[in-house]
């Protein structure tokens, strides 16, 4: 195949055979109870320098309690996958956890923009679609996937994609390198202790991200018996053998919402998006993350029952979520 053009960015890549080998040796196919608290899960499965992926967004069903735990444990030199996400990249960058960001959508607000403008964090521009396709390739166990996005643009030039002459139709086509993250963190409505998981609502790239990643931490609003999955197998999104840890995390997406459980806390969200300077950011991190030991303590001391009751009260739409 004739290579017509190459994007210039470095990109995270694992040879599919190396990934298969990892899956064979390290992904646990035994029915083992993987329930643990978020501190243990992050300690065991998130390492400095990891490529980290997360799913959905800080508005809806995002793994916010796990993000906060990663910040609390002061992980360093992460390379993060900011696809269809909003504030995760802002917080992780503010906490100094991040060196590099693959951008689908960088995140909101003046804080993260300033970090990029000052060259304090390195960004690689892709797009939500191309990063999703890369995860799909990673989940399929193939080295790359052809697609017709990015073509012709500066987004392509700043990505790690290549353009080749497609041997079938004879036209230029983009080849996107597979993405196999070191670790994925995913929040779901229901999981069992083995890691079987299901979500209600749109799925973004939940399954692809879990399949493509070496280590997977699931946090769940509710822990259910395995029979729940066998009763409705159409609803199983993630089978247990993809998963390394299961964390019981009610309100795990706070300040975002989780369908069927609670709405987002708009006030807290606004406070976060309005953070512009370093002082405000460090004050936020101290107040809401460093100064509490756990998600439980965060909910008790920094959010409180009154606020939680309010966001549960607002979650009136249940159609499709139960």
């Amino acid at each position, binding site marked *: 195949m004739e290579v017509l053009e190459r994007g210039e960015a470095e990109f995270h890549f694992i040879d599919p055979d190396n990934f298969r080998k990892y899956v064979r040796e390290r992904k646990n196919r035994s029915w083992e109870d993987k329930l643990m608290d978020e501190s243990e899960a992050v300690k065991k499965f998130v390492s400095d320098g990891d490529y980290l992926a997360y799913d959905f967004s800080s508005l*809806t069903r995002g793994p916010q309690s796990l993000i906060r735990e990663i910040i609390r444990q002061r992980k360093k030199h992460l390379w993060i996958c900011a696809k269809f996400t909003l504030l995760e990249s802002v917080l992780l960058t503010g906490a100094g956890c991040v060196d590099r960001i693959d951008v689908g959508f960088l995140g909101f607000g003046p804080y*993260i*923009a300033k970090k990029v403008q000052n*060259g304090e964090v390195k960004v690689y521009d892709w797009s939500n679609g191309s990063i999703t396709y890369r995860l799909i390739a990673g989940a399929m166990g193939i080295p790359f996937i052809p697609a*017709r*996005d990015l073509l012709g643009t500066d*987004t392509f030039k700043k990505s790690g994609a290549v353009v080749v002459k497609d041997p079938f139709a004879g036209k230029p086509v983009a080849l996107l390198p597979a993405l196999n993250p070191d670790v994925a963190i995913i929040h779901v409505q229901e999981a069992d202790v083995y890691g079987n998981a299901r979500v209600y*609502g749109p799925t973004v790239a939940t399954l692809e991200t879990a399949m493509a990643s070496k280590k997977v931490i699931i946090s769940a609003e509710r822990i259910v018996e395995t029979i729940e999955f066998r009763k409705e197998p159409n609803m199983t999104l993630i089978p247990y053998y993809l998963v390394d840890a299961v964390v019981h995390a009610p309100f795990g997406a706070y300040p975002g919402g989780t369908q069927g459980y609670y709405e987002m806390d708009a006030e807290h969200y606004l406070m976060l998006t309005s953070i512009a300077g370093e002082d405000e950011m460090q004050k936020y991190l101290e107040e809401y993350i460093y100064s509490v030991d756990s998600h439980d303590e965060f909910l008790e001391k920094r959010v409180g029952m009154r606020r939680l009751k309010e966001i549960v009260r607002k979650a009136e739409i249940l159609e499709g979520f139960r």
Partner: protein
Amino acid sequence: MKSDKFTDTEFMICQAARLLEDNKTVFIGWGMPQVVAMLAERLYTPNITQVFEFGAIGPRSRTPFLRGTMGGPQNTYRSLQWCSMGLAFNYAQAGYIDYGMLGAAQIDKYGNINSTMIGKSYEKPKVRFPGSGGGNEVASFCWRTIIVMNHEKRRFVERCDFITSPGHIIDGKRREEYGLPEDTGPWRVVTSKAMFDFEEESKMMRLIAVREGLSVEEVINDMGFEPLIADDIQTLEAPNEKELKVLREEIDPFGLIIKK
């Protein structure tokens, strides 16, 4: 309520909503496009199918529009299908999506748009924006892309500082030559002062209509390049009372989008 007083955003929302066709599919992004689709669905195109990148196909708009509803119960209500982002983009890549709607920080005369950064240095941009999101896919895959943006001189440039999403001709080459799907591309540009299409042969942006009360000259003076000018310039009528009433009382009573 007086209909002669409205914001630029309200003006753009109404123009864009009048452009959509019924019984078509439309890829909807964050913010203003959501409100455009709601208004169109309510007044003009009751059978339009909205498609959202996170994986919601054909939701029924719930009003009022609330902050941060991207992907939550509010804007996925009564969908035909909930699916993955991969599938949502595949629908577009395979040709099932008629319209896409995007904003832009900069645009050039061939409809290339920038939503990534302003400045000469990519490594140290003067201003950094969120980047493509799903914009690159929308502009690459949808049959007709509508771009909605404020009409300011600095936004209309000879060459975007960064081409996030493709227009018709990029650095001298037609989009098909890069491998982008045939017969796709920017279709209309709706601004706070005017509307443009792209001339068939040259693929250059062409002024086709100006806002009621403005002259062609006033519109062009506020651009960083000179567009083609159609022989017959239409007038863009102001939002009417019905549109404003629905927008202000039903769709966005909190003014989250329309007051911007």
